[in-house]
């Protein structure tokens, strides 16, 4: 069995240890004997539609995000729209998440048009507003009520439309906008979230869930073998403790 991953903008959107997400996906598949091919798709390149089972996009600074937004619309839209239609997985973190929505309005009021693959909009309330920064814990009912742990750092406030459901409910931290207790967005197999840390190494249940969906899109239903997750779960627990401590 093989898994084909497309890493979008590995050198442009890589702000918060995002490559850790790639490592978690690739290693957890390889540890189960699955062949993994990772293709990096940079500025100016169009991935061939149908060529990948899972697409990942990280976060970047404002300047990088502007570069990525235009390129996404011009060079990546076709492959990603096709991916959604055939049930491939798209995972985007932070800046990448914002660009999967309808638009991102920056602190200066500049509007970046997103791909609209998630029914969300993001607005930055202005340069004087507080960034939403800190350890975060989310509970995901669709993941058996499991917790997801991570760190968030964003100025933009994201609101969900009727066609997106949240990735989870905020237990500690801010989430999408610091107000409605929602975090992230899911629509079909498209996942967006503000959690980095990076997200996947410390949340093995989510990683395996995404791997299962991605493999299923081409290989049919599969059951992943279990792994020795002692280090993963220890780091997960440590992050839970950290998120609720005061220092």
């Amino acid at each position, binding site marked *: 069995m093989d898994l084909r991953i497309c890493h979008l903008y590995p*050198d*442009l959107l*890589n*702000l*918060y*240890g*995002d*490559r*850790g997400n790639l*490592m*978690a996906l690739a*290693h957890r598949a390889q540890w189960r004997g699955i062949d993994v091919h990772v293709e990096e798709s940079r500025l100016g390149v169009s991935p061939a539609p149908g060529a990948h089972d899972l697409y990942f996009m990280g976060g970047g*600074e*404002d*300047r*990088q995000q*502007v*570069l990525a937004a235009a390129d996404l619309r011009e060079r990546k839209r076709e492959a990603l729209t096709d991916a959604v239609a055939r049930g491939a997985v798209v995972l985007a973190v932070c800046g990448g998440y914002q660009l999967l929505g309808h638009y991102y309005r920056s602190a200066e009021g500049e509007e970046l048009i997103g791909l609209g693959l998630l029914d969300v909009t993001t607005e930055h309330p202005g340069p004087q507003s507080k*960034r939403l*920064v*800190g*350890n975060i814990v989310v509970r995901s009912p669709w993941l058996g009520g499991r917790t997801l742990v991570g*760190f968030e*750092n964003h100025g933009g406030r994201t609101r969900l439309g009727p066609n997106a459901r949240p990735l989870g409910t905020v237990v500690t931290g801010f989430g999408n906008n610091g107000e409605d207790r929602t975090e992230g967005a899911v629509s079909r197999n498209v996942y967006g979230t503000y959690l*980095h*840390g*990076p997200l996947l*190494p*410390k949340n093995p249940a989510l990683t395996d869930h995404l791997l299962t969906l991605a493999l299923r899109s081409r290989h049919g239903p599969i059951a992943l073998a279990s792994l020795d997750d002692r*280090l*993963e779960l*220890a*780091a997960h*627990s*440590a*992050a839970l403790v*950290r998120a609720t401590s005061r*220092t």
Partner: protein
Amino acid sequence: MPSTLRLAPAVILGKATAVASRALRLGGGTTMPGRVARAVAPDITRQLAARLPQGCVVVTGTNGKTTTSRLIHHILQLAGLRPVHNRAGANLAAGIVTALVQHTDWRGRARGDIGIFEVDEATLPAVWDPLQPRAVVLTNLFRDQLDRYGEIDIVAGRWRAVLDGRPPGETVVIFNADDPLVSDVGAKFAGTTVPFGIADASCGAGTLEHAADARYCYRCGVAYEYTVVYFGHMGDYRCPQCGTHRPQPLIAAEHVELAGLQGSGFALRTPAGTAQVRTVLPGVYNIHNVLAAAACCLQLGVPLQTVARGVETFAPAFGRAERVRADGREAVLLLTKNPAGFNEVLRTVMRATGPAAGVVLIAINDLTADGRDISWLWDVDFEMLAGHVRSLVVSGIRADDMALRLKHAGVSSTVMTIDGNLSRAWDAALQAARNGEPVYVLPTYTAMLQLRKILQQRGLVKGFWEE
């Protein structure tokens, strides 16, 4: 009360706080005296700084501030000056006032000639106006503590704004030509600038590493082309679109010979001639620190020979390649703060140890001074440790995260010991070291302070404020 009348009580209270904080064993008293003094006289920084007959110099940037400013301090002392310096890395506004208060006598007279202040890169705008520095040294800009500073472009933007408002002729800008982001700020300055850099392609590390930050031209957004990369995004770069390129360094290191943890030697080329220098500071990143300090001291009128002698006689700052002896073994303490610095430290350690021989202790904390966001661990190339260390002890508040990162780097669990308790982790590392084999200790900032405290209680090192 007019602010000048408040000065004397502010100084007295500040000094009394320093005495009290040490007597009560609250620590080094490196910031509290300044906080107290500023509460009494908010304008105290400006007033005390103005009393320094030769003005002051500011050193800022992500990495190398402490080492560079200590080097400048040491060289200026050799040149016969009495520098006022915020040592021990107290580089926020309160730490700077504390240094000024401590170097003012009870009657308000300055007990120093010139101020050497290392300033947190995000704090620069806040202290710029009261300090009115005659020279500023810009070391580099790396991703560091993103949760605190926002993004490095924002920091660069703040520097730009500060320098734009400065009349040319009042400040000299000394900057790292090998860092494209810093150069973009420095080279734009309307007044005198002194670019420094490495002019020896043999120091190159090959290709851009993962942690590289400023890969794209600030103006065009096009990726820089590098003919040589030293580490991180430091190197000889050019934008293929607009032609922006690394400025020719005025102060340069040529014919570099790296001697692992023993330091390095190189020819220091300056407009005043060339001097052969040796430093015990290891790694390519320390060559930049030496160049920055040399450029600054030459600019202040110190003769080249004194600069060279100062570089040679300089002992490293605490935690910056400091050596500690314990139970017949040697530990080398190498502070790690961010991916680029960590990669350099790892490379230096790997060069110094034989294959599969090293004993390494990594301690990761996530307190405010370390940066609460530890995702940067995933940008460090720990892969180079896999199969190359005999024993790896992992500690600190985020020991479990570090262990997971090492698992993904391919480090075997059989060589790993995980213990969040730093005291026990230290013992485990020493035990793993055979006689004569050094232990490499790689802590984040607060883990370093914690370890210093433990070693101090065991009588192995002095308190850092005593140095």
